[in-house]
């Protein structure tokens, strides 16, 4: 655990700084608000009304998120494998090739189905 | 001849006939069906006369392992009880087929070929039930009879039959499932004893402790009581007979319901004697209620078919009473009663069926009488069958009824006394029904098929039945010879001997 204590120290320091900055900016800056200032910025025209919760956005982003999750997990498995690769030698290689090939199948499918195209 | 699997062939004949007729056009199917049932009759007669030995005990035995993992055998055999039931079955089916010759012509559900096929299937299953000597096999065919019966009731007959069929099947299935518990229980008991088996002979050898016996008994008895039927689980009976064709009713009441009483003898008394004696008081009371209640309700019926159905309730009360009073007269009387009731009620149903077909209604009140003059043969047959039902001396039911009543008195005077009242009530419902439907000035017979007398085919179906009624009324000995050895076997197994040797009329 001692290995993580310094991280905490640094994090607290950073957090202190960030919070301080946020408070400072509120406290120090001038306050001359008007309605136009408080509107969302939209190049000077009347802002488009926003639905609650930020509205909807393209499905593409979801697909990217899903793909990311899949690949990130794959990486999670690659790391311990890589670290201990020297111990596993050929067995490790074969197993990982199988693993990567399996993921590659899904990857190829997504690619062919246009899952990677951003339009 | 003894090397042949006689009973298997006997079961196979109607089964093959059923399958064949299912795929044939109506007219051909009828002929094939009649041929098959006739063949079964002949085959049964040959088998009985050539190979059955009057000494009693299980005969014509066939045993093959069926499901080894469960200790199930395909085992057939007949004893005195089984034989008479088999003969009754094979005798009634051709009669029913002839009687219902045109019955199913205009119906859906496969028409005549469907009807014939189901009837033959029912025959095959019933024969299997009466010959099974393995509990599992018995149970299988016991339940299997329901399917043809269900389609017979639901497929042919008066409107509202679908509901009636469903009621019928639910009742019967419920009973069957309750019995399943006991069947499984028997198996477990035998497994605990070290030899899991379903063979009746193996099971009879078991020494089951009384408490278990009682539980198993309840299971079997409930199923058989529903089948029989016995008060208070009889309510399917009247609905079914009302809606079904009379041919179907004959098969149901005269053959199928006998399985109930047959089962009581075979399983309740045969396998669970202690529990049977334990249950006697309750069963006797139930039987008495059935006798009286059935008769009383029958009196109040307007529907002829319902009336006949309810008389059967009364009669089954007699049969059960005979079985559970535990003496030789009672039991042999009961077995005899099973045969006689089969013959008598069959005749009554068929006659009633002819009458209803002519009048276009089953309501006694709507018939308005008068048929006596137009159709004397019909009326006569009705009268004979009716009187047989109420136990007129000289007709066969009288013998069996007397045997049971004597046995009842022997058991306890009040039991006999209550049973006797049924004779009076029976006279009321038969004669009153006859009076209202046949005698009197008569109305106009317009708008119906036409009130005419019985034709040759119809008389042909009734004649053998009436003859049998008369024959067994005066000379029941041939039957008793077959029955009595079996009765002795049962009494020995139950462990009650009253010394008396068979029932003498």
């Amino acid at each position, binding site marked *: 655990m*001692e*290995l*993580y*204590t*310094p*991280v905490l*120290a*640094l*994090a607290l*320091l*950073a*957090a202190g*700084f*960030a*919070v301080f*900055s*946020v408070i*400072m*900016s*509120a406290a*120090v*800056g*001038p306050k001359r*608000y008007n309605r136009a200032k*408080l*509107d*969302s*910025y*939209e*190049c000077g025209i009347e*802002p488009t009304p*926003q639905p609650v919760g*930020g509205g909807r*956005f393209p499905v593409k*982003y979801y697909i*990217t*998120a899903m793909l*990311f999750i899949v*690949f990130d997990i794959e*990486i999670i498995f*690659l*790391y311990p494998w*890589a*670290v201990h*690769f*020297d111990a596993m*030698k050929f067995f490790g*290689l074969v197993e*990982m*090739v199988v693993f*990567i090939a399996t993921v*590659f199948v899904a*990857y190829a499918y997504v*690619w*062919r*189905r*246009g899952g*990677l*195209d*951003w339009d | 001849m003894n090397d042949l699997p006689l009973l298997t062939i006997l079961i196979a004949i109607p089964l093959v006939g059923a399958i064949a007729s299912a795929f044939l056009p109506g007219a051909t199917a009828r002929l094939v069906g009649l041929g098959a049932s006739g063949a079964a009759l002949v085959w049964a007669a040959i088998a009985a006369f050539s190979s059955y030995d009057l000494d009693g005990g299980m005969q014509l035995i066939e045993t093959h392992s069926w499901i080894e993992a469960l200790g199930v055998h395909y085992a057939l055999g007949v004893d005195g009880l089984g034989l008479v039931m088999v003969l009754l079955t094979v005798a009634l089916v051709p009669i029913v087929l002839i009687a219902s010759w045109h019955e199913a012509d205009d119906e859906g559900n496969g028409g005549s070929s469907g009807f014939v096929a189901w009837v033959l299937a029912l025959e095959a299953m019933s024969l299997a039930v009466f010959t099974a000597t393995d509990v599992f096999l018995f149970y299988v065919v016991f339940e299997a009879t329901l399917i043809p019966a269900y389609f017979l009731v639901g497929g042919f007959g008066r409107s509202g039959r679908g509901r009636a069929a469903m009621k019928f099947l639910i009742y019967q299935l419920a009973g069957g499932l309750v019995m399943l518990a006991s069947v499984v229980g028997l198996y477990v008991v035998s497994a605990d004893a070290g030899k899991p088996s379903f063979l009746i002979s193996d099971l009879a050898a078991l020494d089951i402790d009384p408490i278990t016996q009682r539980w198993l008994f309840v299971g079997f008895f409930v199923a058989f009581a529903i089948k029989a039927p016995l008060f208070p689980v009889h309510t399917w009976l009247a609905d079914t007979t009302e809606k079904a064709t009379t041919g179907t009713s004959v098969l149901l009441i005269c053959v199928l319901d006998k399985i109930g009483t047959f089962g009581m003898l075979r399983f309740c008394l045969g396998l669970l004697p202690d529990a049977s004696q334990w249950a006697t008081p309750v069963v006797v009371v139930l039987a008495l209620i059935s006798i009286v209640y059935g008769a009383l309700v029958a009196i109040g019926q307007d529907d002829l078919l319902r009336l006949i159905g309810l008389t059967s309730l009364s009669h089954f009360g007699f049969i059960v009473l005979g079985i559970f009073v535990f003496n030789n007269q009672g039991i042999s009387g009961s077995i005899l009663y099973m045969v006689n009731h089969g013959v008598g009620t069959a005749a009554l149903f068929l006659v009633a069926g002819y009458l209803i077909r002519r009048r276009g209604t089953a309501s006694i009140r709507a018939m308005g009488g008068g048929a006596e003059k137009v159709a004397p043969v019909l009326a006569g047959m009705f009268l004979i069958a009716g009187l047989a039902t109420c136990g007129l001396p000289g007709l066969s039911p009288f013998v069996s009824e007397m045997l049971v009543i004597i046995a009842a008195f022997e058991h306890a005077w009040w039991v006999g006394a209550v049973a006797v009242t049924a004779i009076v009530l029976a006279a009321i419902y038969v004669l009153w029904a006859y009076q209202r439907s046949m005698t009197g000035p008569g109305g106009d017979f317009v708008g119906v098929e036409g009130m005419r007398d019985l034709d040759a085919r119809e008389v042909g179906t009734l004649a053998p039945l009436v003859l049998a009624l008369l024959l067994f009324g005066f000379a029941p000995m041939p039957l008793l010879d077959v029955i009595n050895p079996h009765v002795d076997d049962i009494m020995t197994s139950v462990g009650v001997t009253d010394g008396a040797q068979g029932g003498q009329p």
Partner: protein
Amino acid sequence: MSLGLGVLAVQPAVADDGLSAFGQDPWWLILIKAVLIFLVLVLLTLFNIWFERRVVARMQHRIGPNVNGPFGLLQSLADGVKLALKEDIIPKAADKVVFLIAPVIATIPAFVTFAVIPFGPEVGLPFTDRTTPLQLTDMPVAVLFVMAIASIGIYGIVLGGWSSGSTYSLLGGLRSSAQMISYEVAMGLALVAVFLYAGSMSTSEIVAAQNPAQEYWLGVIPIPTWYAVILLPSFIIYVIAMVGETNRAPFDLPEAEGELVGGFHTEYSSLKFALFFLAEYINMATVSALATTLFLGGWHAPWPIIQVWEGADSGYWPLLWFFGKMLLFIFMFIWLRGSLPRLRYDQFMAFGWKRLIPISLVWIIAVASIRIITLDGGIDRTYLFGAAGVFLVLFVVLFFIGDSAEKADAEEPDRAVETDAWAGGFPTPPMPTGGAVRGAAAPLTFPDRRTTVPGTADSAAFDEEK
């Protein structure tokens, strides 16, 4: 001064003892280190901003900021103060709480990741007899830690974009998150090869593993040991991914001024905006520091120096090498910004998903195979370099054959368009490719069976079509 510190230096940290050197510091030392790192990062950011402006200005034949302080070094500080004095606006449409928290969330991880970056070997502290590594802490999963914490930073951006309640912000936030996660995959895959060779995920051990006793070919040419050389593809992928990860040009799509005004921070002003800015520059420093650590031998002196100067790897000198290498990367960032135009978003995503990832996967398998061969002995490293060269060529080829292959990849056109114009016995005019033209007359349709809703009455029509 620096020479004196060098005298005070004790033995350089020995790598084999694993992480035993860490976790020994007393609380005050931890505090000092933390504060130092904090200060360094803040100062580095100020410096980097100035550096960027100057360099870009030079590239564009301008001078850049040169008024405040020597060479205009204090320009960034002045900007910071100016920002602090600006009006703090929270838009009406914003989700107030999240809007305030977002910059904080973006900032903290940026600082924290530096906790595991090794700046130098174990050194003696002045005025005490205590030794301590020039690194706040280390752990067996240090690199994973960096990636994990860095991902938290993404939340800051996404939440900032979302909570602003403005279309531009939202799109910017989404884009940045999509882009960061896309390139994180490539980055993660690039690191696998490093771990495979180093046999560890601890930063200090990776640094140690890159600097074994030097060997030579023919006694003269040094055999390279830095992973930037022996794992060149990984290095290249990492560098590309790191630019994508930090939202820097040419991958600065989330804040693309031309389309999104300012991206996720459009609505931010005052110090909150400064925090985002700070976070971005620290992240830049972080990925540079990580690249240095993982691929350029960390704080070790570059090759020729150690030959001529034995003490270059001891004492506080490594700080110099470390920051030097790091600034190299920073310069590269600036250089890229100065020279490359911004990518289109679809190009950018396609590059990440369709090029970097498959190449990384293939490369990992190749690396593993090579490793097996070397471990089982018998193969000289010469061959290894040959193989690396082949892969490099392959990499380049793959890089350029992209488009033609991509066309073939597209789903084959749906058959309804070109099939059976005469189905059913009467002609159906084909639709103009690309659909009806806007403003043109409505396309001609015939009320034939094929245009009705399928499945109800026209199953017969289907049969014909089959």
